[in-house]
């Protein structure tokens, strides 16, 4: 599904080059990417998602070059094959919950399936919020909607950036289980990037990022 090779990145004029371990992720696989803050976790996630272009090395998506594609083509491929849960949930403010999910389908090149959207939200305990404005939701509800949005178009790969950092133990477990269940239901690979040591107990496959990713 996803393969990275010799990824390196440096923020222009902003310090030394970062080197990342190679990562390989297949369909149905779960992987935890663990690292303390400052280890470039989010940078690595953005490189894998094609939101940044690596200084060297490359990313393959479905056995095809991904990081070398043009910006617009990467956007299209990402929308189609990936679902991303960001640390902070963002939405299109003018659209309600259902419409935000429908937009994810449209942008992924699919016709929105209303019954799938409804059952997905029902399963996440949001059945009563289908037509709610997104800014009327609680933070926890927003997090669940963003998980639903990441899986609604049945992507092959789900990326989650610190999905639990702001949650207590109970909610951490709930959100993680939701992510795993949705990924399993969609037959997708799941990659969770976090500094949250609590997740170690749940996900056995993991890569720990070096506390200092800098190379000479």
């Amino acid at each position: 599904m996803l393969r990275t090779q010799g990824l390196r990145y440096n923020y222009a004029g902003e310090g030394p080059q970062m080197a990342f371990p190679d990562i390989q992720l297949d369909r149905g696989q779960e992987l935890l990417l663990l690292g303390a803050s400052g280890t470039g976790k989010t940078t690595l996630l953005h490189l894998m998602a094609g939101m940044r272009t690596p200084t060297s090395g490359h990313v393959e998506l479905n056995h095809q070059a991904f990081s070398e594609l043009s910006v617009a083509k990467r956007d299209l491929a990402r929308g189609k094959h990936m679902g991303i849960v960001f640390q902070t949930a963002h939405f299109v403010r003018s659209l309600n919950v259902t419409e935000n999910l429908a937009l994810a389908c449209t942008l992924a090149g699919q016709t929105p399936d209303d019954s799938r959207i409804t059952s997905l939200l029902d399963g996440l305990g949001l059945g009563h919020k289908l037509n709610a404005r997104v800014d009327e939701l609680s933070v926890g509800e927003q997090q669940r909607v963003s998980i639903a949005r990441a899986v609604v178009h049945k992507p092959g790969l789900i990326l989650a950036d610190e999905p639990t950092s702001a949650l207590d133990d109970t909610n951490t477990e709930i959100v993680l289980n939701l992510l795993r269940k949705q990924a399993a239901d969609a037959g997708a690979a799941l990659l969770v990037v976090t500094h949250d040591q609590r997740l170690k107990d749940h996900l056995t496959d993991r890569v720990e990022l070096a506390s200092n990713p800098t190379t000479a």
Partner: protein
Amino acid sequence: MKPARLARRNVLDRPLETGLSVLLLAFGVGIISLMLLMQRSLTEDLDRNIKDIDLVLGAKGSPLQLILANVYHVDVPTGNIPYAEAKKVMRHPYISEAIPLAYGDNYELYRIVGTEPSYANHYGAEIESGRLFDAAFEVTVGAEVAAKTGLSLGDTFYSAHGLTDGTDVHRDKAYTVVGIFETTGSVIDQLLLTPIASVWGVHEDVADANEEITAVLLKKKNPLAILTLPNLLRDTPMQVALPAIEMNRLTQQFGIGIRSLRAVALLIMGLSFVSVFIALFASLRDRKYELALMRTMGAPPQRLFKLVLFEGLWMTAAGIVSGLILSRIGVILLANALADQFHYDVAQLAPVNGEYLLVLAALAVGALAAALPARSALKIDISNTLGQGR
């Protein structure tokens, strides 16, 4: 969800900013459109009354006053001219049609005009009831006069002396209404027509040599009439004036007012585009996470450019449509307020040619005002925007 539909949802989600932009544009477009509509109806009104009258013969004085008095019946005449002298001009070989007018009396401030049946025919005035005047002291009444004074077939009335005062009533000879005209949209609607003899106060159309008339409306047979007649009249108390030229001069006089009003309207339109521009820029600043997010969900930069462009165009289109509706409401209100002077008909709400240009220009400038903010949507760095606090 198509970009156009999402654009509409986005602008409606910010009702205040959108409302201000739409309102400003609606006023700018509305004022210009109202001016175009009024200008058309005024020009048509003026032209309908000039209708093939090439020259007006009357007493020396202001040529504009001669035209206003005898073609539009809104000013007092420059004086009277001897009928015998006028006849020489009327029979001139360069003249194809001549309609004499003689007046000086009114009925409830509507002018009683002595003339010949050709005057009614010239404006295509049809009889609604009764018949055209024939004998002296018979009148055929214009549609509006009949409606306002309540005169109907068979009524008799006395005329009042002068044109602006209804108190000095002649009690000697009574006029009889023998017919009522249909509405023509021309000056005929506001007049009472009678044979010239009635104005002279006699029952026969055999005037003595000293009888006078007010003016003659002339149609030329030969364009040389315009050059020849003024020379011919140099040593007489008479002159000829050209309605087309005098009215042109008049419209140029109030052209200054129209130009400054247009400048104000253009200024308001300019402000509305600035407001569209600012509204979009401010909204993009607030929505940069949202736009970055759409990129991660599979919207390439071009799609975001299109989205922001559509948002600008949506506001522009809403402003244009509201403006065109406003101007039409304005025409209807003005028409009702000026019902006496202003002949209102539904055709006046049809688009004026200038409005097509106005709409195209507004759309073009609206697109331009949206293009700059839209360009900034192309340049969002999604990783920096979404990964803050990495």
